[in-house]
């Protein structure tokens, strides 16, 4: 076992911040390359005309998931040392719905808004100010919502634990699901393009 390097003490917090900055540069670079600095391109996902959001997101998830899986199978990385956000099912379901609504109303999510701002999009800047107001408001009203925020705690919980299926089998299932989803997405895009050409 060698990885995660930081957890094995290969470097300290200050170098960690340098790593953060470099990771962020890579993150922002590929988001922009994909077209995620554009709210129209992002929102097109929800009108079935351009499914780039789905394709990029699931390609990234599959890539990182396979990497993590094989690195831990070959004993290079200790997966138990990778931070896993604990599951609080009810607030995460409701939070997802609210965030999804915000996505189609606003056109960006928080990360893509940063890329939108960096490439001059005024709507991304206004949306980012909205995120500040939303988080500030949540924090100020926290005593009122803290009960629901902490409802249904389930601890650190993975899909292999929920389904009692082997990790590798679920990895394989997600890959198959993604490949099926990509084929479906290509088909839907072609159909939508044909329909628009007719109209």
């Amino acid at each position, binding site marked *: 076992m060698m*990885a995660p*390097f*930081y957890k094995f003490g290969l470097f300290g917090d200050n170098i*960690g911040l*340098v*790593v953060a*900055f*470099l*990771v*962020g*540069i*890579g*993150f*922002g670079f*590929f*988001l*922009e390359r994909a*077209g995620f600095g554009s709210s*129209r391109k992002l929102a097109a996902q929800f*009108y079935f005309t351009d499914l780039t959001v789905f394709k990029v*997101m699931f*390609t*990234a*998830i599959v890539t*990182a*998931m396979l990497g*993590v899986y094989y*690195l831990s199978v070959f004993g290079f990385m200790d997966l138990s040392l*990778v931070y896993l*956000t604990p599951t609080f099912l009810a*607030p*995460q379901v409701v939070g*997802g*719905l*609210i*965030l*999804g*609504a*915000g*996505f189609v109303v*606003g*056109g960006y999510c928080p990360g893509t808004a*940063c890329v939108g*701002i960096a*490439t*001059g*999009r005024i*709507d*991304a800047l*206004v949306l980012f100010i*909205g995120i500040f*107001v939303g*988080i500030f*408001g949540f*924090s100020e009203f926290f005593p009122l919502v803290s009960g*629901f*925020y902490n409802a249904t705690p*389930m601890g650190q*919980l993975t*899909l292999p634990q929920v389904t009692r299926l082997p990790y590798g089998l679920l990895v394989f299932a997600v890959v198959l699901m993604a490949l099926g989803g990509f084929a479906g997405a290509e088909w839907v895009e072609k159909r939508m393009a044909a329909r628009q050409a007719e109209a």
Partner: protein
Amino acid sequence: MESKSAQPYWNPYVAGVGLGLVLLASFVVMGRGLGASGAVASVITAGLDVVAPSHVANNPALAEYLKEGTSPLKDWLVFEVLGVFVGGYISGMLAHRVTRVVEKGPHISTPRRLVFAFVGGVLMGVGAKFARGCTSGQALTGGALLNAGSWAFMIMVFAGAYALAYPMRRQWL
């Protein structure tokens, strides 16, 4: 929308592999994934801590972002998000895609579009707080780690967005 010399975007699968490798590198090097909304909370906490430190200390939603002996801004996600701005700018600049513009569909006025952008941002902020993360920290990061709550969150993000797509169509189509 963009200037004439703007280059086409990359193939989504190529960009997705790149994004996935960045995420994997973050797991391998740091033992943690990506994020975005958490940095905003750190900035808010840092700002409020200057004007009303006791208010911050007494509010658990803010106090969790305080750091012992140093600024809340000296935070991993804050530095990562600064990088996102830089990386986004580098990519956009190289492809001639940096343009000052309000993106919107042809059937909505600019002020209305900006009102929607603001409201969408507020919803994002509230949703990300309840969910303990946004599309980056939950969907991407937790998705790759097969985190149960992240997958529930991700499905609900798409559900929420598709549910409002029809009433919102005048803004985009």
